[in-house]
């Protein structure tokens, strides 16, 4: 482009801006600015050295600063939505998103926003999407929010009760719902996150016959498989496996007698060991069952159950479980938020409880308690209890942070993804978005 052409003059909606082509190069080729400077488009300008753009100059200023500094600062007089719209015009919405909040760190989270929805009843689940959006399941509806927290068309599968939701990617959501007996309704469906339309409905075959089923917990693997716990009639309990690309069922792991798979509360795909963690927890069944399944040779490679163990006075029932592959262990939590650990390398697993719960003692139990939940993100362990979320770090899982908000009641579910943490409260239909602020200037 030559040195003398490095300076660029824009007339945006009547205001003159001057910048350099190097600044504009930060926009990338797939943007308005990338195209306008491509040699195919010998720049047209009415006046000799000025390019007119018929857009809002205030937003242009913000976006130009974003290109200059890589940071986003939105003045109070500009509505966020307007800025997003302008950014979308220039093809820079992704730039705005990645500058809006920083890289996730459980110990530096700040409450960014709370959203109140209109759905009646308690929330079932909240799931963070890969690009900062989320979806919330209430009864038979799933409400979808993009990263700008704009609500999209809700998702429903035959208006059946939703058991679990999951993002395959930023465009696709899978929901699992109860079956409606005798109608073939329910099961599992793949939806577009932006339009809410049904793209694929998954089916289960038993002995070459399509059967209706209730889909429970979901998990996805990096090799494009979908896992779901399934309940069909009588002995059609187990874990179904589908191909994300073709939508076809490719495997089914039947529940062995005396064990529980089809009722599972939680599935977790373990990349390192190519296994699926399946956990059925109290009180869905009278006992807790946790197992690792290897689908390649159809084997249960690790299992644990509290069945048969004597019930002690200070009864500790496992309420959530999460596998931590790096530590070769499973972390579990009971209703007093005690963390317990099991070694995945030994098959005779016993839980090593840590007595951290004393920290919590003395708190008044809220009116409507929720069971604790666990999440793991880049070496940080998160556990929700009542109305707050605790963050644990380090090899000994020291308690390092606590996230709490004053209203909304107990947290019934939370999820981490797209560098955000979403926490769903059981009352008032409200969910919180926690973000890590962008790094400090110096």
């Amino acid at each position, binding site marked *: 482009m030559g040195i003398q052409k490095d300076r660029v003059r824009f007339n945006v909606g009547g205001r003159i801006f001057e910048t350099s082509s190097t600044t504009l190069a930060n926009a990338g080729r797939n*943007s308005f600015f990338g195209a306008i400077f491509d040699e*195919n*488009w010998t720049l*047209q300008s009415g006046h000799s050295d000025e390019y007119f753009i018929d857009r809002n100059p205030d937003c242009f200023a913000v976006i130009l600063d974003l290109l200059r500094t890589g940071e986003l600062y939105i003045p109070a007089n500009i509505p966020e939505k307007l800025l997003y719209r302008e950014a*979308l*015009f220039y093809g820079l919405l992704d730039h705005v998103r990645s500058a809006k909040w920083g890289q996730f760190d459980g110990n530096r989270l700040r409450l960014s926003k709370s959203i109140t929805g209109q759905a009646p009843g308690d929330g079932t689940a909240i799931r963070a999407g890969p690009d900062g959006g989320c979806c919330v399941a209430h009864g038979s509806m799933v409400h979808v929010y993009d990263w700008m927290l704009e609500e999209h068309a809700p998702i429903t599968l035959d208006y059946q009760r939703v058991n679990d939701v999951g993002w395959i990617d930023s*465009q696709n959501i899978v929901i699992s719902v109860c079956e409606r007996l005798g109608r073939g309704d329910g099961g599992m469906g793949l939806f577009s996150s932006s339009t809410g339309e049904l793209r694929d409905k998954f089916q289960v075959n038993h002995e070459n016959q399509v059967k209706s089923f209730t889909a429970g917990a979901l998990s996805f693997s990096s090799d494009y498989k979908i896992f779901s716990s399934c309940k069909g009639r009588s002995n059609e309990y187990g874990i179904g496996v589908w191909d994300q690309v073709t939508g076809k069922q490719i495997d089914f792991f039947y529940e062995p007698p005396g064990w529980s798979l089809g009722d599972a509360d939680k599935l977790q795909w373990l990349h390192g060991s190519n296994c699926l963690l399946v956990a059925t927890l109290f009180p869905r069944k009278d006992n807790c069952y946790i197992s690792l399944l290897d689908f390649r040779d159809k084997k249960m490679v690790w299992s644990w159950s509290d069945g048969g163990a004597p019930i002690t006075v200070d009864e500790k029932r496992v309420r959530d479980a999460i596998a931590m592959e790096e530590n070769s262990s499973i972390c579990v939590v009971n209703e007093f938020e005690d963390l317990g650990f099991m070694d995945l390398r030994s098959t005779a697993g016993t839980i090593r409880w840590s007595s951290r719960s004393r920290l919590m003692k003395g708190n008044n139990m809220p009116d409507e308690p929720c069971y604790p939940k666990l999440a793991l993100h880049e070496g940080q362990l998160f556990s929700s209890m009542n109305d707050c979320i605790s963050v644990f770090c380090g090899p000994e899982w020291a308690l390092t942070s606590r996230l709490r908000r004053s209203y909304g009641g107990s947290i019934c579910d939370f999820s981490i993804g797209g560098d955000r943490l979403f926490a769903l409260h059981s009352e008032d239909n409200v969910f919180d978005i926690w973000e890590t602020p962008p790094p400090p200037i110096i």
Partner: protein
Amino acid sequence: MSNQKKRNFQIEAFKHRVVVDPKYAEKTWNILEHAIHEIYNHNASGLSFEELYRNAYNMVLHKFGDKLYSGLVTTMTSHLKEISKSIEDAQGGLFLEELHRKWDDHNKALQMIRDILMYMDRTYIPSTQKTPVHELGMNLWRDNIIHSGKIQTRLLNTLLELVLKERTGEVINRGLMRNIIKMLMDLGSSVYQGDFERPFLEVSAEFYRGESQKFIECCDCGDYLKKAERRLNEEMERVTHYLDAQSETKITNVVEKEMIANHMVRLIQMENSGLVNMLLDDKYEDLGRMYVLFRRVQDGLLKIREVMTSHIRETGKQLVTDPERLKDPVEFVQRLLDEKDKYDNIITLSFNNDKTFQNALNSSFEYFINLNARSPEFISLFVDEKLRKGLKGVSEEDVEIILDKVMMLFRYLQEKDVFEKYYKQHLAKRLLSGKTVSDDAERSLIVKLKTECGYQFTSKLEGMFTDMKTSQDTMHGFYASHPELGDGPTLTVQVLTTGSWPTQPSATCNLPAEMSVLCEKFRSYYLGTHTGRRLSWQTNMGTADIKATFGKGQKHELNVSTYQMCVLMLFNNADRLNYKEIEQATEIPASDLKRCLQSMACVKGKNVLRKEPMSKDIGEDDAFFVNDKFTSKFYKVKIGTVVAQKESEPEKQETRQRVEEDRKPQIEAAIVRIMKSRRQLDHNNIIAEVTKQLQSRFLANPTEIKKRIESLIERDFLERDNSDRKLYRYLA
């Protein structure tokens, strides 16, 4: 009705509806359509990007996305139809160039269209799941140009024709070719594969099928391989120049199959130039080529290995069983070494040091070396020869190399204990006669044997060396305690431990009086310093240096064996002695005496005695005189003994028997060791384990093992199980 008429003054409900100019969409699209035309007509300089981008943005924003999209499809399709026509009209060689130019144009136009419609690409297309603009442009090009009836086959034929031209040596425009192939790849792998790659592979297979047939009729194996290699390289080069990298394995597979796999056996067995001939003539380059090419196809190396193995076995078998070759053991072993060197070189230079080939070579050698029962003896003789004189003036490293080679042959031997027997004999002779060239070399070989077979194998050999050293000290002590012996004959005694040395049954001969006195003195000295020992003289192994004066006063120092000394000393007191007299006086065993006389009377240049009658052989009635006319250029004359270097038949039998005898305790020891740890074992397993344990020394014969087991049962080391007669139990 009437009521309504009356109420016509009613204010209409306020409809909050923004009415957009109904022609708005049409107008905006016209602007964009015009722009697309201009872009395709290379007339874009008059267009304003900002305006077009804004127009497309507005259409999407105002929900005219579908109109914009369908308009794009229609406009682009109509342009592509025009382009298709102009490509069809291109004549002959210009066809590809026109296609390429238009493809370039289309790509550039597509990029610009995509720039204008960027907003649609980002928002409208993902939410409606339509094909993105770039992909759409590719698909439309594919459907309207590449798959149009008049272009599709013409394109394929042109491309294949160009490849054929290049294969037959013509120069083609590779750049253009690359661009066209690149276009097919850009259109998706299915287009590249379906419209080019698959037919290309088919045509190639046919081409190489024909060519290989032609070559194999008229070329010898080496030439054929050269041609195949060149073709293979050409195809790989072709891939790097203008095909998709993923085609490489496919096309090389075709060449491999047609040119190599289909003709493998014929190539290997080709008369006068096949594998065997290459091996015989050390054609490293051709062999290397064959290896590299055959490695590419399944079972290729296996075939080479099979033929090589059977060839080595065959030639090796001839080598070790040819009676002519057995005459000279040194030559025999040298030939084995040469053969090994030859194949080692081939494997190193041509076969990439392939482990499987090395193994095949080793197993072949093991196979044929053991075909000849005398191999252990010959190898020991070879070492003997080398250690006696062969290594004179050879550097230490070279000695090591030769010894390592010998060790390699040794490794092939199954009957290592036989080798040990012979080696011991030969070593004893070397040590006693002081013939060994280098102590270091001797010791180095023993270290090698030790690492190969363990301490047990060499302990006796090492004992021999110790004896030699101790004897030296003893002699010093002896002469120090008898200073009066300075003038008389000098006696050097080597005290050998029984058991360490190969004992040869020998009748002691009568020593001359001077010597027996000396010997007695040594005996009393030795027994005086070592109690509880017994000394017996091995007169068959000694040597002597004696001074002799002949008829005309010529003086010589004669280096002779102890037996020869005894005989010669008799002539101090007599001029003429016949055989019987000598035999009586010396009591030397007849065969030794005959040999000793033969070497003194019948060997030219060494004939210190004369014999009557003159003949080659010694008869019972022969008479002997001192040869007064004996002359020699040298003062010192070494009178050798006519030795049977190789063992005579009865001796061989005897060695054999001794070996068998020695094996018995070893087998028994192995059985006991195994049974002690296993407590009980069935017959077949014992045999297997014993064989395995003794493998490093010899190949145990199952019947012999069975005999040993029986002997052990008799001696109550083992017992048979009462219910299962095949099961043995160890008795502590």
